[in-house]
């Protein structure tokens, strides 16, 4: 895959430089160039939401730093965890005196580094709680859902946690509602073509010209089914079945729905997919309260898409509906 880049090793830092040049009203950097926070951080008296992870997934993770979303983000190399020290810097620069929530995807590199950061914060008497997003149905059976990968479900988690913190909830309250959201969020994806990490220079996986892989992870982790490329309607059927049967989502459930593009798949195709998923859900009596369709969690130029459903209750509905604003996500 051809790329518009300079030195592959400078890719992440140059990207960050661009983002900071473009959005100085919304974002600023800390003493650690990889720890980026809200321009108005720290917000005194508000629970700070910290996130982070490898680069290459924009808007995830940095794109969800903003009003009604996260307060800070530590930025790793492409598909690699940020360091413990970066997360610690982001923590110091954003905490508003009432504790921090570390909210990120369940990947061992991130977990290990952010656990180290939390231990460092603890030594400064900053209280840190962690909620891991683990929504990828393909990566472990239901009984072990906490072992699953975190994928596009992150978006709902940010929305809920960020809105709750913005409302003035305590850390315990933010943690509780975010955990509830995460426990009711399921995703399933399909990959059609791989992406290439700039510094690696080779595709993350290989796949036949006429093949697709259901359940592939956003770094190219193997999925649950590889087979001939099917029609959008058949793919919709597979993704919807996997997600609906998992939680399971039931008749009269009210859900927020995300059809997410992985990078190279055009929005037109996402709407073709959305159409059929929506029809199937309606057929099952599952009510789609709010829909997001677009690129919300990508894997560089990977081709493919994912479906995420979040079961709503009254509080989650309010938090999902709340306004939010970042350079990458705006809802009024």
């Amino acid at each position, binding site marked *: 895959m051809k790329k518009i880049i300079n030195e592959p*090793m400078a890719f992440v830092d140059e990207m960050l430089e661009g983002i900071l040049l473009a959005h100085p009203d919304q974002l600023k950097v800390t003493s650690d160039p990889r720890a980026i926070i809200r321009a108005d951080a720290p917000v005194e008296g508000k629970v700070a939401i910290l996130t982070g992870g490898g680069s290459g997934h924009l808007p995830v993770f940095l794109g969800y730093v903003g009003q009604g979303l996260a307060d800070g983000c530590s930025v*790793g*190399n492409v*598909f*690699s*965890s*940020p*360091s*413990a*020290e*970066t997360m610690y810097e982001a923590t110091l620069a954003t905490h508003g005196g009432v504790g921090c929530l570390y909210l990120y995807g369940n*990947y*061992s*590199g991130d977990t*290990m*580094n952010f*656990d*180290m950061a939390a231990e460092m914060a603890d030594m400064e008497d900053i209280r840190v709680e962690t909620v891991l997003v683990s929504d*990828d149905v*393909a*990566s*472990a059976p239901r009984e072990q859902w906490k*072992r*699953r*990968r975190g994928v596009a479900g992150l978006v709902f988690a940010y929305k809920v946690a960020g809105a709750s913190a913005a409302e003035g909830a305590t850390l315990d309250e933010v943690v509780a509602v975010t955990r509830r959201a995460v426990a009711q969020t399921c995703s399933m994806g399909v990959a059609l073509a791989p992406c290439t*990490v700039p*510094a*690696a220079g*080779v595709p*993350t*996986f290989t796949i036949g010209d006429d093949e697709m892989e259901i359940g592939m*992870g956003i*770094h*190219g*982790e*193997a*999925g649950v089914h590889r087979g001939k490329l099917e029609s959008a309607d058949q793919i919709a059927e597979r993704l919807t079945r996997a997600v609906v049967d998992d939680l399971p989502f039931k008749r009269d459930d009210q859900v927020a729905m995300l059809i997410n593009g992985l990078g190279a798949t055009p929005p037109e195709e996402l709407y073709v997919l959305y159409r059929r998923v929506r029809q199937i859900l309606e057929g099952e009596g599952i009510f789609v309260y709010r829909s997001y369709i677009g690129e919300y969690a990508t894997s560089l130029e990977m081709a493919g898409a994912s479906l995420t459903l979040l079961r709503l209750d009254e509080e989650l509905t309010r938090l999902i509906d709340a306004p939010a604003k970042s350079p990458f996500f705006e809802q009024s």
Partner: protein
Amino acid sequence: MKETLTRDDLVAALRKMGDDLTEQAETLRELDAAIGDGDLGITITIGFGALEEALDELADQDMSTILMRGGMAFNRKAASTFGALFATMTMRAARELRGVESIGTAELAQMATAAFEGVKERGKAELGDKTMLDALGPTAEALQQAADEGVLLVVALERAEEAALKGVQATVEMKSKTGRSSWFSERTQGVQDPGATAVYMMVRSLAGYVATAE
């Protein structure tokens, strides 16, 4: 051949380790690509690069500081599962080096055991889960045995290299139970664990240093 390792030896051995592992980065990338996400090659290249750079500044510190700061430099630039665990290993091993002037078989055995315990704590995995523990555990055990027998460092490392190799080979048949690869546990059978392979390469590199350095 070295009977013990001084501070200069530690620095030289770490540099050699960096060079050796970087040379093998492509192999590690391929293994990680097969059952993980393929970033281990970059992690190794960047991480050891950062470590070697840090050594330029650290060369006149004591051994414990060199090892700890070197590991932190690795993870700062190449944070990842492997990076965090590498930093954990060096930090725990460094603790054992406080006040120590030279490393013989006994000291090395203590360092390896501490590193092993550290990785277990940080990663919450067990032996047999198909992780670096499966190379690190046998290494620590072999070194401890050698220390108990009072053998020379060069012999101890010969045995450790052999144990690590066996350990790493045993990972081929294991099914991954933790980390990225556990998401498709079944399919990981038949592939050697990349992190364990890296640990084996580190042990081999150190054994090579001790065997050949003047």
